């Protein structure tokens, strides 16, 4: 890609990191969205968590506000119900089995140099890149 504008991704990343940092210093917890999502709907051993509901509500509000006031997102994604359902199922199952996703292992775990998170992040990045390569090669023009 030729777009050299790195200010959008950089400022968005700073906001995400600020959210994760504040959540640690205020509530003492890891801002991992897979865990917060599971806890918001009661799919952890602790039942429904007010923190999960609050954080997820905040994500919805923040995304809606930023879409209205800062930048209108234009989403481009597969419209195959099969891929969406299969992808969602294994993302949900995998993030819970592996105790985290891009936020918990990536943003928070790498910041605190957790060996588990470093290995998890390297693993899901490598598998995701390989998956994209296979999808592009096998299903030309698909996905």
């Amino acid at each position, binding site marked *: 890609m030729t777009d050299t504008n790195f200010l959008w991704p950089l400022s968005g990343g700073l906001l995400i990191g600020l959210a994760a940092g504040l959540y640690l210093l*205020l509530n003492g917890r890891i801002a991992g969205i897979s865990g917060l999502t599971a806890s918001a709907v009661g799919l952890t051993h602790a039942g429904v968590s007010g923190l999960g509901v609050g954080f997820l509500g905040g994500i919805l509000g923040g995304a809606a506000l930023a879409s209205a006031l800062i930048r209108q997102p234009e989403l481009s994604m597969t419209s195959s119900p099969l891929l969406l359902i299969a992808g969602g199922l294994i*993302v949900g199952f995998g993030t819970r089995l592996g105790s985290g996703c891009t936020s918990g292992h990536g943003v928070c775990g790498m910041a605190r140099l957790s060996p588990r998170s470093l290995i998890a992040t390297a693993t899901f990045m490598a598998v995701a890149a390989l998956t994209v390569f296979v999808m592009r090669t096998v299903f030309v023009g698909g996905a």
Partner: protein
Amino acid sequence: MFARIVAAMACGLLFGAGLVVSDMINPARVLAFLDIAGNWDPSLAFVMGGALIPSSIAYLIRNKRQAPVLDTSFHVPANGKPDRRLIGGAVLFGLGWGVVGLCPGPAIAALTTGRWEAALFAVAMLAGMGAYRFTLGRPMPDYSFK
């Protein structure tokens, strides 16, 4: 508890805004970053790099504090050893992420766009979390988010 929920909501607001501002909410952008053998889009490296700056500073500050501002102790898991669950989960997650281009945060944020694809993915993701909860997740303690 009320203050902690308000704090969680405020952090969520910043997080959700960050997903939109960075365009990480857009699966095509994510897949273009993961497409290292093709027409690579480095944007998400700036997202991750940018996120790690305040996050790392916060974890450095944490080391000098006994407790967070609104709670009596930190709930950060101890640095354990990698195990098969961690690797297996990361492999599955990477597979699903690479197929669609949505990870949990953007999947939630994308619900605000009203796109049916995002809603279907989110429902399937919750079903996957439920499937874990009532199978492999049953006997093991949930040590990441107690």
